[in-house]
């Protein structure tokens, strides 16, 4: 028997109003996250991965127009704001991309870490600071006991991201959403932070939703991966399977355009063309204009996300036919 997913997203749509019209940033996303696993969300900038993350926490500036976000069996979209506040930072926490801007420059880091503890666990100021020092020790910040009294500007980028992680795991959440947590960091620091996230998962069994555009990060860390394109999940499956045998032409292109998916000596092949502009509505498959395998009907009919066996899903008419053929 498979365990229940801790997070089950169905048909989630988030839209932004812009001068160019309605932008469908998240356009019908289905996604499951099981307890203790790390799920990667990859895609180009503008593919809707961050909008998805913010929609889960209901912190998006856009409007969630449809769908469900089931967290431990409860639809978050039905909750009142006060109930949502109880959940944020306690059961679902988030880490942001740029540790230079994601910490309050005027507040000591110990106090910032302690905030969630004070709101959710009702700790006293003193207990919260003590716990903050412990958390900083847990994320391997040297001299943690003294560092709680530091201001963010006294720490390096990597150290700040450790603080952000300490903040995220302070109440041992069930789900940690990490929005490009290493993008703003030096390469050597990136590896340390990724190790830290993986270590945290092992220690606390916290599920992690890792948003990234870096396939190397996904390969290194994620149990499963969802590839996003134009606000939709186009392929989903176990990381090893997806990397070894990508099913969606976009995934194939993505792997071909980065060094991680290539043999040494093989040239990189960028995906031709551009993703649809925000607000642009493409008839048929949104990837068809860039797809080397696209056929006539790809430009007319939008494909659904189809289970293609082995826990894998793809949103491609070509695969759909294969799936239908093998089923019949």
């Amino acid at each position, binding site marked *: 028997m498979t365990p229940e997913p801790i997070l089950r997203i169905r048909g989630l749509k988030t839209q932004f109003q812009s001068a160019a019209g309605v932008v469908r940033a998240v356009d019908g996303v289905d996604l499951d996250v099981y307890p203790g696993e790390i799920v990667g969300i990859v895609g180009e900038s503008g593919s809707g991965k961050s909008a998805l993350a913010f929609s889960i*926490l209901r912190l998006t500036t856009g409007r969630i127009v449809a769908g469900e976000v089931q967290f431990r069996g409860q639809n978050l979209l039905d909750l009142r704001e006060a109930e949502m506040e109880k959940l*944020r*930072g306690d059961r679902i926490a988030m880490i942001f991309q740029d540790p230079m801007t994601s910490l309050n420059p005027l*507040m000591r880091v110990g106090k910032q870490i302690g*905030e969630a503890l004070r709101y959710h666990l009702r700790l006293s100021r003193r207990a919260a600071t003590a716990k903050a020092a412990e958390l900083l020790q847990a994320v391997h910040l040297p001299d943690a006991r003294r560092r709680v009294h530091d201001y963010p500007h006294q720490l390096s980028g990597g150290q700040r991201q450790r603080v952000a992680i300490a903040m995220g795991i302070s109440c041992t959440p069930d789900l940690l959403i990490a929005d490009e947590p290493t993008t703003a960091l030096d390469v050597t620091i990136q590896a340390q932070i990724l190790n830290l996230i993986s270590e945290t998962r092992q220690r606390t069994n916290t599920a992690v939703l890792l948003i990234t555009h870096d396939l190397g990060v996904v390969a290194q860390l994620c149990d499963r991966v969802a590839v996003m394109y134009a606000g939709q999940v186009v392929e989903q499956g176990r990381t090893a399977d997806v990397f070894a045998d990508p099913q969606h032409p976009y995934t194939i292109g993505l792997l071909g355009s980065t060094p991680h998916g290539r043999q040494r000596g093989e040239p990189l092949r960028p995906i031709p063309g551009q993703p649809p502009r925000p607000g642009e509505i493409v008839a048929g498959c949104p990837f068809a204009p860039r797809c080397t395998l696209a056929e006539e009907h790809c430009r007319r009919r939008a494909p659904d996300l189809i289970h293609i066996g082995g826990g894998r899903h793809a949103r491609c008419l070509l695969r759909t036919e294969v799936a239908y053929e093998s089923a019949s």
Partner: protein
Amino acid sequence: MRRYVTQRLLSAVIVLFGVSIMVFMVLHLTPGDPVEIMLGPTARPGDIERLRAELGLTDPLPVQYVRWVSRALQGDLGRSIQLNRPVLPELLSRFQATLILAVAAAIIAFSLGLLLGVISAVNHNRLVDRVVAGFAMLAVSMPAFWVGMIGIVVFAVNLRWLPASGMYPPQGTPSWGKLLAHLVMPAATLALVPMAVIARFTRSQMLEVLSQEFVLTARAKGVPRARVIIDHAFGNTLVALITLLGLEAGILLAGAVYVETVFAWPGIGSLMVEAILKRDFPIVQGGVLVIATSYVLINLLTDLLHAAADPRIRVT
């Protein structure tokens, strides 16, 4: 931090030095010979020469400057031609009245300005925001002296709620209550424009802060929205506004001149207006020096406050 304070103090001293030179030059750049003015058109040439030598006006300018500064440092700013009294005590007693007025206006302008700005930003683009914006626009565009006169007509003449002018009633013993009644209208008039300016800057600064990621971090931690605004956004807004608040404090001090004239407030502004009209140069000179010095002090205080409030400045 210590180095920063020393630096600021040093630059304040340098500015004051420049101010003293300018103030000193006022007397020498004014058309007409002060001695001739003092003695009048009927004076004999010999008397003029004698008084000029007596006053040290025949010495080279640097010598005169040093003498003037060393006297000023000892609190001797000369004697008023009109009142025939030492300038400094006169200036100080008038300056006290100005200070009371300016501080009262600052309390009104800062508290209401910040409050309105925050309310506006939090209700971005909603009705409240637009009402505040309209009110601020109106307040900025109305000249203070006109508002003061309208206030006198409405509250003093027609409604008889508040006294029209002065600091205390002409008869009777002064008291806090009487002072307060006399203070309300001039302080409110003086506060109006700075309040509107502060409200507008607070609004835009607060919006800027609210769009920053650490605000989102706080929300993602589960901090309620109201607490995010109080604990995270307001502090950062205030730090960014300290410079503006310092400037406005200076403006309140200098702007008091108009309001003092309209409400016959016995402050340094109205004293200087009288002195200018009567060519009482020692008073003008001393008055400029006092106001300029307080300006420099406010600036110094602003910088130090900024350093104290923003940890990023402290280490450099």
